[in-house]
């Protein structure tokens, strides 16, 4: 939490850039906290943070979560089926915890490999044999 708070308190530079919308801001929270954004975008984020109390509160809500919590939601995370605040918490966790990042990568690989159409073939002639129990009308 403290580490996050120090990152948030970066000095504000004067900027001409247009501020982000709330939705854009929420989507970029993790990148902002980890200083992964280009300077212009970072300034836009800072402007938005300082002008929108709700988004500022959202930023401060991004508190660390533990590995057990992450495991519980890792499958929903892969399916993009987690609330936006939890998603941000998980993104932060994956950046800091190499174990959970490895579990995430591996689980994604499973989903990708086994969901690949080429993985399972239908045996030759299956289509013909499939209907052979159905009584023929003629």
């Amino acid at each position: 939490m403290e580490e996050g708070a120090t990152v948030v308190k970066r000095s504000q530079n004067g900027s001409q850039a247009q501020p982000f919308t709330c939705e854009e801001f929420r989507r970029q929270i993790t990148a902002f906290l980890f200083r992964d954004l280009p300077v212009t975008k970072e300034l836009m984020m800072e402007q938005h943070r300082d002008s929108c109390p709700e988004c500022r509160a959202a930023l401060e809500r991004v508190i660390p979560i533990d590995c057990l919590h992450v495991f519980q939601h890792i499958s929903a995370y892969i399916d993009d089926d987690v609330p936006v605040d939890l998603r941000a918490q998980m993104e932060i966790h994956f950046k800091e915890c190499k174990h959970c990042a490895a579990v995430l990568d591996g689980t994604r690989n499973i989903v990708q490999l086994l969901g690949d159409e080429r993985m399972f073939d239908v045996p030759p002639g299956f289509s013909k044999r499939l209907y052979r129990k159905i009584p023929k009308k003629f």
Partner: protein
Amino acid sequence: MGTLRHQVESDELALIRRVVEGDQECFYDLVRPYERTVYVAAFLLLHNQADAEEVAQEAVLKAFRKLNQFRGEAKFSTWLVQITINEARMRLRKDRHSLYESIEQESASDDAGGTYVPRDFADWREVPSEALQRSEFREALTRAIARLPEKYREVFILRDVEHMTVAETATALGVEQGNVRTRLLRARLMLRDELAPGYDGTWLTEGRWKKVRPW
């Protein structure tokens, strides 16, 4: 996209009507797009080609006989998969393996039970797509699915292999959507534990692969 699905569903309803009215040929047109779905579901549940074909044939026969009872509450494909799963379950019960299966099922924790904690944290960043072409690799993945307890295996097959939605999977299996999500989580993490990093990088190279894990 939504319109296309609508179109497919209304075309299917028209085909179903014609089959029920006696036009048997339409039944083949109705089932043809789902032949692979039926086979793959049966194969992954039974892990045996001959049994899978037998179950697929039974499922299609049952669908043909019961088609006049299809009410269109679910999609036709979901209904067909539901029949296939039921046939496969019956086959598994008859099979000697079901003895081991039931023990395994009982020892597995409940859906609502504690969090599943991965057994290790091996890194596995590469997806060996060339490996898909190799039969021994596919065999390893298929075996890993076969080792999952049945309730997790069913959900995994429908969601991640057949790409059915949570709602469709819940309908086909007769369980709540929450159960689908919990079982899928567990199935995915169990498979990752089983397979990552799998075979020590030899997926990408020629020659024999060896298992690096003690289990």
